[in-house]
């Protein structure tokens, strides 16, 4: 009994530490990456390559006074950042980094991640509502409508994959893709010829779900100042930031598990956690790349993309795969 509790504590601490370190150093990577893309150095003063910048930022954020704007709903205002961060960390529990490194392998792993991901929208809504700022309310309404409309094609795509692999356990999903790149879900097969399209679709949805550019309408700084976290300073803002980056890691992990064979090697050699990390960081790099390359979409363009293009395609893919699975 005590061993299981100890295990649980270790798992939770490891998950939080992984999320926090990732959040801190992804900010650094993002700023360095943006610097490279924009032909400027980026943070390079604190430590070698600016590697001490994240702790400095953390100390600065923690040292700041937590201001609650007058007239704000105090309880909601305080709860929202925690609610943004907590589900993101919870989702790490079921993610298998390799066949041995997983906090808790669940049979409904996919479902759990999506359930927690939906709570992120709640946090944004509460933040917007609680801070009593028009900009924040407008931004949070945008973000919620965006999250809802992008969850649908995302889930339909996941259903397609669940049908193909026959399991909702993330580790088993990866296991069904072992043995080299031609076994991965992204590669079209006879029963699922549209898988590359699905991958692209899921990738776009992951960008939108994590409120990343070009879908960062919730924090469109040229229109809504800073969006839903306009009124947040100090660690309230810090938690939102960490939650966002933790969500990015989860999005990249999900893409890796669902489409790119998890911890498997493209050539079937030496499977292990290193392949998993390599894949997620490559995906995260592409997220950063996209953010610093594209302008922002409009809110109606974004909703049109989801309802008029992505959902029909994903539904068609679902039906096609269902039919072909029956045939082959």
């Amino acid at each position, binding site marked *: 009994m005590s061993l299981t509790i100890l295990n649980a504590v270790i798992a939770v601490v490891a998950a939080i530490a992984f999320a926090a370190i990732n959040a801190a150093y992804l900010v650094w990577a993002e700023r360095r990456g943006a610097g490279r893309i924009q032909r400027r150095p980026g943070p390079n003063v604190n430590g070698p390559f600016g590697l001490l910048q994240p702790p400095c930022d953390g100390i600065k954020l923690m040292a700041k006074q937590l201001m609650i704007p007058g007239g704000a709903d105090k309880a909601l205002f305080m709860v929202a950042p925690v609610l943004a961060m907590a589900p993101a960390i919870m989702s790490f529990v079921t993610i298998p980094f390799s066949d041995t490194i997983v906090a808790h392998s669940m049979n409904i792993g996919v479902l759990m991640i999506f359930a927690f991901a939906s709570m992120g929208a709640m946090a944004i809504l509460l933040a917007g509502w609680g801070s009593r700022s028009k900009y924040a309310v407008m931004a949070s309404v945008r973000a919620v409508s965006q999250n809802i409309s992008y969850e649908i094609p995302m889930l339909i795509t996941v259903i397609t994959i669940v049908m193909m692999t026959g399991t909702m356990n993330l580790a088993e999903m990866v296991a069904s893709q072992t043995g080299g790149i031609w076994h991965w879900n992204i590669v079209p097969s006879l029963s699922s010829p549209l898988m590359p399209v699905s991958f692209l679709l899921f990738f776009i949805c992951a960008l939108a779900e994590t409120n990343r550019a070009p879908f960062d309408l919730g924090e469109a700084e040229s229109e809504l100042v800073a969006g839903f976290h306009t009124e947040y300073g100090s660690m309230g803002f810090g938690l939102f930031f960490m939650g966002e980056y933790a969500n990015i890691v989860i999005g990249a992990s999900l893409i890796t598990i669902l489409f790119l064979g998890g911890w498997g090697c493209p050539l079937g050699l030496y499977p292990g956690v290193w392949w998993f990390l390599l894949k997620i960081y490559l995906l995260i790099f592409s997220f950063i790349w996209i953010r610093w390359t*594209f302008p922002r979409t409009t809110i109606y363009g974004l909703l049109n993309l989801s309802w008029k293009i992505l959902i029909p395609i994903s539904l068609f893919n679902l039906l096609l795969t269902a039919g072909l699975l029956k045939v082959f």
Partner: protein
Amino acid sequence: MSGPIHIRPDETFTLNVGPQHPATHGVLRVKMEMDGEYIVKAETVLGYIHRMHELMGENRTYPQVLPNLSRLDYLGALGYTHGHVLVIERAAGIEVPERAEYIRAITVELNRIASHLFWFGAFVMDLGGFTPLMYAIQDREHILDLLEAVTGSRLTYCYYRFGGLYNDVDDDFIAATKAVIPMLRKSLKKYDALVTGNIIFMKRLEGIGPISAEMCRKYGATGPVARGAGIDFDVRKNEPYSVYPEFDFDVPVYHECDSLARYKVRMDEMEQSLRIIEQGIEKLPDGPIMPKKKPKLIKPPKGDYYQAVETARGSFGIRIVSDGTKNAYRFKLRSPTYSNMSLFDEACEGMMIMDALAMMGSLDLVIPEIDR
């Protein structure tokens, strides 16, 4: 807050965009009556950075006012001082050596490109793309270096004098300018490839933010805003001044009236400015840069003088009523952004806020120039 809040379905709310807001690029305030994301009514509130340049123009002697003109528009300052020296030269009857006029044209066009480059970056940043700003600023830096070498300053130039220039250009400047032109051409092509063809960019601008020719006439909009609405008007062509008749250049005009048309006009204008600079350097005559005979004290004879010049933002007019003394009796500035801005209230009605702010970006606002 206490008590229940009753929200009617047709209730609108007021959104204060500015005076401190990232989209307004300065201290501009727009009071927007919003219905959700839609703008019902907008009201521009000006005056946050009013510095009474016109009154200063009446209280100071003509040469003393000269530096004021470059404080109007900090991005394309040379065009404004050009207007001032032109009107005083005509009023006081001062001959300008040809070399000085050519150098003025070259530097004004360089400044126009610098201004448009900055606008390009800031505009794409308004649309959420941050990176082009960095590229544009880097290219603008080359131009600022060139201008710094001859004028001595980088932003608020006071380079032109009544009758000529403060400083002659040297061979280094000519060589450096010749080197910068092909580099800028390459960059412009790169921007076109990077930004103009982008599907998100096109979707945000095409058909969005209509400003018709009729509206331009109603509010007196000029420059790229009017040329994006199909009005073929450029002061350099229609009311030529300085040595512009000597140059062969086109006035880009687009008839689509949308934000994309205004974007394209400015991008094409940079290419045309490069052509003018090339020709200017080729034709640059030798000679003095200041006239031999120049009055010690500038005292234009009694009269009413007006001069319009094409600045980066549109037609800038300067009117001087002289009573024969060393101060102007009336000093009136017609700044292009003021007119371009005033159509915003009408144009943005019924638009979504993000489209309206994209349109505001396409107007190329410089707030100190609106408020003067």
